[in-house]
Structure formats: structure tokens, C-alpha cells
């Protein structure tokens, strides 16, 4: 009998192996509870014994975060995956964390609605993973991110306690907005077991316009102009174009318009006019192209560095820095959610990662964020994935929050910022 079988059931527990490793750290045990009660039992025991637990859904996004400091249990949360409440006319949905985005999308689509968040590899993403890693995609330009759509949460915390925050109605200011704390926290303040979202009606039509231009500088400036003139539903920069479709030495601007058919037609014409003399290729299935673009942000390279800054600084900081690094011989690619000011730099050679990261951090504007978005275990070795949050920017508060909520160091130890 394994030490975890008594709390989770023998069939829910197996010994961890190399294929279960999180950033190279192999868990002693892999536990897959059937329901929330099982999750609570595991975390109550983990709290008592002070051992580290990392939770995951289907495991596709475990390359986000710093390597765990210790890892006794890898907790798979894909089984509790029910849709708990959905009344289409309320435009809210409550699901268990293991619910996949595909299954969620299918349920919502039957009523003409969607959760307009489009992370990479949506088919391999659970709701818990979406929230914990604060995943997003091109749609964030017009629809916001998890923090804008998540209205309620249940997490299993210290001692296996079930803690709820927020609620199930679209407006609610009772108490602190606890769901916000768990968005992007990588499970470091508790294991997410349930989430409630606002949902929206699906757009009547979604089309995309792809424009190939000579390089990332020109692409950025065109994209920023289009943002101002058209206010598209999403707008992506891709360099080189071959990451999606096109040549190795050109860049792509892809503009999405989702909404009333009349507006989509009008916007498409305006985009074509503004993009001239470049040719504009119109894609009738804009959603398919958008999903492909989102998947690119989780491309398998040694490391992807995320730079979040003001949209205008994509042109003044990100692109020139990348061009200089490329000129020095580093093999890099670049994608960006232009309207949100979020760029991802793919570092294609493992031995470049540290240098590229240092250069971006050294040159970044004061308010910008430069983090390792995803990386292989080998690339992460010795790398400062998150960087430091200064005391004056809340660093001490964050460290204290972690201690206060997770005094025994159970929840994803070492994975997130401000952790010993």
C-alpha cells in the first residue's frame, strides 16, 4: 500500500517516473483523485506532512513556471470535470477544474455562446490550467483575459479546506475579489477545483486578414496603425511568416474581425485599404487561423521569453532589440498580441537563452515585464524564470501572502515568484 492510497484510493495512486517530471523534477507519486473530496484528502495529508504538491490538468502547460523546489505528489485534476451549472440566459457557467476547454466550448456553442479566451493548445487545456497559468491568446485584444471573465472560484487550500471566492452572478462586490489571487498563481495559493465564468454570445462571423510585409519593424508599425483605425477583434504579429504560413524572411500581420457580418465586411475593406500597397489575404474561417496563431505561442523551442509592455514599445523597444540580437547571430522568432503589448520571443538555440533574456531585461522600459514564458527543463536550469518583484512593487506583500496562505509550503513550492 502506497502512502497516498489510504487517502485517495489505491487505483488513484502510482509511483512517479521520468515521464511525469515537472521541469526535470520527478514526483515521488502521481495521484489522480476521482472527485473534490479526494483532492481535499490528499491536500490535508500533504499539509500535515509538509510535502510539496504540484497540480496539473492534462499537463500540457507544465512548462510554465520555475522548477518545483520539492515534489512529492503530482496531482492530476482531469477527473473532476463536470459542468455544474449552466443557464444560457444567465450567461454564466460553473465547471469543475478538470473540464477541458473543448468540452466547455461544445456545451456553450450549443447555446450560441463562448468563453472568449483562446489559449494555445486549447484541446489539451483544462479550466484549472487556464486559470492557474493565466493563459490567453489573440482574443484578449477585445475580450480581456481570465481576470476579466472569472467571477467565482473554489480552491482546496491549507489543511484540505475548501475555500470559495466570488460567486455565480456577473456583478458582485461582496468581500475581497479572491478569484483574482489565483489567476496566474500556478496553484501556489491552493489547488483550483471549480470556476465560474461570464460567457458571451458567439459572434455572427469571424474573418481574418493576413498581410505579408518585409520585416518586423514594418509589421509593428502597420499593426499599430490598424489598431487605431479599425479596432479589430484581434491583431497578431508573426515573424518570420513561416511560423504560420509564408516565407522565412517576411513578417505577417494578421487581423481578426469577429462580430456582426455587416461590420466584418466593412472592417475588411478598411483594412485592405490601409494595408495597401501590401496584398491582403482574406481568410473566411478566421477562428481556425486564430487558433493556429495561438498554438504558435506554445511552440516547442528551447525557450519562449514573454515581454509585456505598452503597445507602442513593441516598435520602440522589442523589435529593435530582437533585430540587434539576430544581427549578433542569435536564432530568434517573434510573435505578439499587438493591441495588448505582449510579445513572445522564441529562442531556437539553447545556448542563447540566458544571453537573450539578460539583454531583454537590461534594456526593458521600467514598467515592462520580461519573463520566461515557457522553456524546456534543460533551458531552465540556473535561469531566473520570473525575475524579482521589488519591495516597492509589492514583492514583500507577495512573499508574505504566500507564507500566510501556505504556511507549510505545500502548494507548488518554488514554482512562482517571491518564493524561497
Amino acid at each position, binding site marked *: 500500500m502506497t502512502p497516498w492510497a489510504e487517502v485517495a484510493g489505491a487505483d488513484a495512486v502510482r509511483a512517479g517516473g521520468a515521464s511525469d517530471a515537472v521541469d526535470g523534477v520527478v514526483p515521488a507519486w502521481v495521484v489522480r483523485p476521482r472527485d473534490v473530496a479526494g483532492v481535499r484528502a490528499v491536500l490535508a495529508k500533504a499539509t500535515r506532512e509538509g510535502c510539496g504538491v504540484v497540480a496539473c490538468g492534462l499537463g500540457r502547460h507544465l512548462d510554465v513556471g520555475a522548477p518545483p523546489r520539492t515534489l512529492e505528489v503530482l496531482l492530476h485534476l482531469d477527473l473532476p470535470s463536470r459542468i455544474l451549472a449552466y443557464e444560457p440566459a444567465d450567461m454564466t457557467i460553473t465547471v469543475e477544474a478538470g473540464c477541458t476547454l473543448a468540452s466547455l466550448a461544445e456545451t456553450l456553442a450549443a447555446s450560441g455562446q463562448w468563453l472568449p479566451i483562446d489559449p494555445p493548445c486549447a484541446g489539451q487545456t483544462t479550466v484549472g490550467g487556464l486559470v492557474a497559468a493565466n493563459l490567453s491568446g489573440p482574443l*484578449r485584444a477585445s475580450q480581456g483575459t481570465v481576470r476579466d471573465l472569472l467571477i467565482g472560484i473554489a480552491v482546496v487550500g491549507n489543511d484540505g479546506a475548501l475555500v470559495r471566492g466570488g460567486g455565480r452572478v456577473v456583478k458582485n462586490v461582496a468581500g475581497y475579489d479572491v478569484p483574482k489571487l489565483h489567476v496566474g498563481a500556478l496553484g501556489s495559493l491552493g489547488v483550483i477545483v471549480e470556476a465560474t465564468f461570464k460567457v458571451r454570445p458567439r459572434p455572427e462571423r469571424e474573418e481574418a486578414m493576413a498581410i505579408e510585409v518585409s520585416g518586423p519593424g514594418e509589421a509593428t508599425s502597420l499593426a499599430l496603425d490598424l489598431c487605431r483605425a479599425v479596432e479589430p477583434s484581434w491583431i497578431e504579429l508573426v515573424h518570420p511568416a513561416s511560423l504560420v504560413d509564408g516565407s522565412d524572411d517576411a513578417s505577417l500581420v494578421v487581423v481578426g474581425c469577429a462580430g456582426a457580418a455587416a461590420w466584418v465586411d466593412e472592417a475588411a475593406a478598411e483594412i485592405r485599404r490601409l494595408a495597401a500597397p501590401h496584398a491582403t489575404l482574406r481568410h473566411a474561417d478566421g477562428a481556425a487561423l486564430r487558433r493556429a496563431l495561438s498554438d504558435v505561442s506554445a511552440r516547442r523551442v528551447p525557450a519562449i521569453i514573454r515581454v509585456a509592455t505598452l503597445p507602442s514599445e513593441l516598435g520602440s523597444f522589442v523589435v529593435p532589440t530582437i533585430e540587434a540580437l539576430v544581427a549578433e547571430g542569435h536564432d530568434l522568432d517573434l510573435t505578439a498580441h499587438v493591441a495588448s503589448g505582449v510579445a513572445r520571443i522564441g529562442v531556437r538555440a539553447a545556448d542563447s537563452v540566458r544571453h537573450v533574456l539578460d539583454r531583454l531585461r537590461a534594456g526593458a522600459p521600467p514598467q515592462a515585464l520580461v519573463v520566461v514564458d515557457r522553456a524546456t527543463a534543460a533551458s531552465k536550469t540556473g535561469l531566473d524564470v520570473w525575475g524579482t518583484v521589488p519591495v516597492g512593487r509589492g514583492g514583500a506583500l507577495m512573499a508574505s501572502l504566500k507564507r500566510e496562505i501556505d504556511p507549510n509550503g505545500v502548494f507548488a513550492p518554488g514554482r512562482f515568484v517571491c518564493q524561497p
Partner: protein
Amino acid sequence: MHTGALASALRDIVGSDGVIDHPDALSVYDCDGYTLERSAPDLVVLPRTPAEVAAVVCRLWTAGVPFVPRGAGTGLSGGTLPVHAPVMVCTSRLTAIEAVDVRNRRARVQAGVINASITRAVERHGLLYAPDPSSQPACTIGGNVAENSGGPHTLKYGVTTNHVLGVELVLSSGQIVELGGPVEDRLGYDLTGIVVGSEGTLGIVTRAWVRLVRAPQAVRTLLAVFETVEAASEAVSAIIGAGLVPAALEMMDRLIITAVEEAFHVGLPTDAGAVLLVELDGPSAGLDDELARVTAICRRRGVREVRVARDDAERAALWKCRKRAFGAVGRLARNYCTQDGVVPRTRVPDILRTITGVAERYRLRIGNVFHAGDGNIHPILLFDERDHDEVARVLAAGKEILEACVALGGSVTGEHGIGVEKIAQMPLLFSPDDLREMLRVRAVFDPDRRANPHKIFPDALVCVEARAPRRQVPL
């Protein structure tokens, strides 16, 4: 420390006109928009800069004195009522709009900037600040951040938390922290997200980075007149159910219609059961189709009349009715008390039936003017404060309505906050474990509970002399 000595120490920081300690002057600060309870502070401090706020709070920390932050005092749940907090720190003099970044659609504003003045400062660039509480000509951004304020247009655009990217916060120790910033993604925990809506219990917000949105290319505003509240509610559900997302979807019932018509003479039909105010906005292409769909839905629900505003002046007149409805109610009764509950959108007819029943049972007049599209109800209970029996019935009826909201799967507050008013209702929504988690968060920011003590949390419930309800300040 003796109050006189403290006043003198604070005057050294903010100047002699920055501290109020005369009892007559202090009585102005004895309540906010929630007037059922009153309690004046011993001192009011009016710093002029974020640095002065920090110096004041630092001084209070050294003296061991708890404080209440206050903006314009338009809050509706008693969030700025001093409860064992002798000093009130007002941010109303922090009025600088420090930076407007038109290209990136951001602004950095000080906490005392009035909500509506942000839009006024940026509208020439075709931009606006979206959250629009009814008190927007008076309320401050600092207060909006504290309360996570809403407004009619939050149906489409979201509430304050969706538009605040970062804050500068003075902790109860006097230390200044900058959380978030102009950039969308942030490093580490979303502390901005937890500060928004924390009702001044985590510190004093002195600056905020806000998002600006592009002013809509086109707007269509219509007023739909229904014979009954039920028919209007069904139309609301049908509009939402049809996949339309109006910018605003507001309802007023007969009592409110009558009050508004008597006050503003805009030609509202005082014999109607309810009116819906529907606003659609966005690109002009497709907007008239949406308008036609909304009109058709209203017709299928037996609408008596649909009036579409023909120009900005007519649109402004319709909105004036809605945003000044609370003030107009003052004509109907000596006093009134506004509640703020939320139900799932589909349960709006249920809660309205409950309210009708409550009004009958408690022999009260209750009007309804609310954000129907969000399920955020605002029943207005009319009374005369001189009638103590009626006052007791108002309090009991309000409680029963909120309990019904919770029973229907909703919340006891959608935008007004818990403050002191709804502390007793917190356990209806949250378990002891849920509340303990919030208190852990509080302990991180303010371990000694010096910032706005005795708010939000039931264990902090202490006795403030509950007096007869008074006339609510106009919104």
C-alpha cells in the same frame, strides 16, 4: 496620543487648513450616502499629494491610531463611517490627472480625481473612461477603486476592476507600494485585483492607472414602455437570450417613472407598469439591425410603445431620468433607503415578485430602478424617519430582500459594497473558511487592522449607535 497633539502633528505635514477638528465642521463627515448610521471622526485630514498621504499615515502608524479613507463620500454602504477610527484621511484634494497616454489608451490619475473628469479630459481624443456610476459627477476614482464601482454601462464594458491596471497604495505602515502599472500583464500575484473592491481595508489608494476605451462610433438609445414589470423582465431575458449585448439595459417601475416624470417632465407615461432603457453602441455597421432586433423582441413581449432617441439631446434626456432617479424619489417620501442585490439574470422576475410581496407584507412603498441586464436590483424603500415602526419595517424588509437574492443564487451587493451596512449578511454568502482566507489577505496588507477597521467582516462587527434612517444624499 491626545487629539490636540495629533492634530498639531498632522498640521505640520498638511498645513493648517488641511486638518479639520471643529465639531461643526466634523459633522459633515459623519456619514456617506448610507445615512442609517452616523458617527463623526475626531479629525479629518486633507492631504494635497500622495506623499502627504503617506506622511500622514506614517504619523498615524507611529501614534497607533486607526483611520478611515474617504473620497467624495458618495458611497452607499457606510464604507467611510468611522468605527473606532478617530482619523479620516480624505483624498479629495489629490485631483491631478498626471498622465494621459493617448496612443496606448492609459491614464495615470490621482485618487481624488472625479470619475467624470477623466472622460472630460480625454474625450477630445475620442476616448473615455468606461465605468459610469450614477454619482460620476461627484465620486472619485479612489472611491471607485475601493468599492469596485459599477454603473449602467458595465453590462457591456465591465466594472472598475476591468479598467484599473495598477494602483499606488499607502499601507497602514505608511509605506508606499506600486502595484501593477500601465502594462497589461503583471509580475506575480494580481494584488491590484485584490485592492480593487477592498473598501479601503488594505490601505489608501493614492494613484491609479486606468484604461481608456475608444468612444463608440455610434449609439442607439431607446425607451420601451410596458404595461407590466413582468413583461419588461421577460423582454430583458429575451434580449440577453438572443445573444445581444446592449451597452446598458435598465429598468424603472411605475413608482420610479412617476417620481422621475414629476421631477423632470420628460413625457414618461405614468400609467405604464415599467420602462426599459436600452442602449446599443459600437461600429455603425450592423447597429440598426441590432436596434430592429431589440424592438422586435419588445413587440413580441407586448410593448406599448418604443421611443428611439433621435439625437444626443434626446439621449441625454433619457439618461438624465435614469441617473437622477434616486434624487427624484426624494419627492415621493421624506426618506428612502436603496438596496443593492444581485440575482442571476433569469431570476429577475422572481426577485421582483418577492419585492412586491415584501412591500405588501411590510406595508411599504418600494420602487425599482436597476441594472436589469446584469440582474443587479436597486429596490428603493420609502419611509418617514419620524415613524419608528415604519423604520423598523424598512430594515426588516431590506434584509428579507437581500436574503431572497442569496437564495436565488445571487449576492447581497453588486456595486455598493458591504461597508457597515451588510456585514451581517456576509455569512449568508461565505463560509468561515472563505472569510478566514480573506482575513489572511488582510493580515498581509494591514496586520493590525488600522485601515478602515470594522468593515466588511462579521467578526469586526461592533456597535455603532444605529439611529433612525435619514434622507439619503442625492446621487
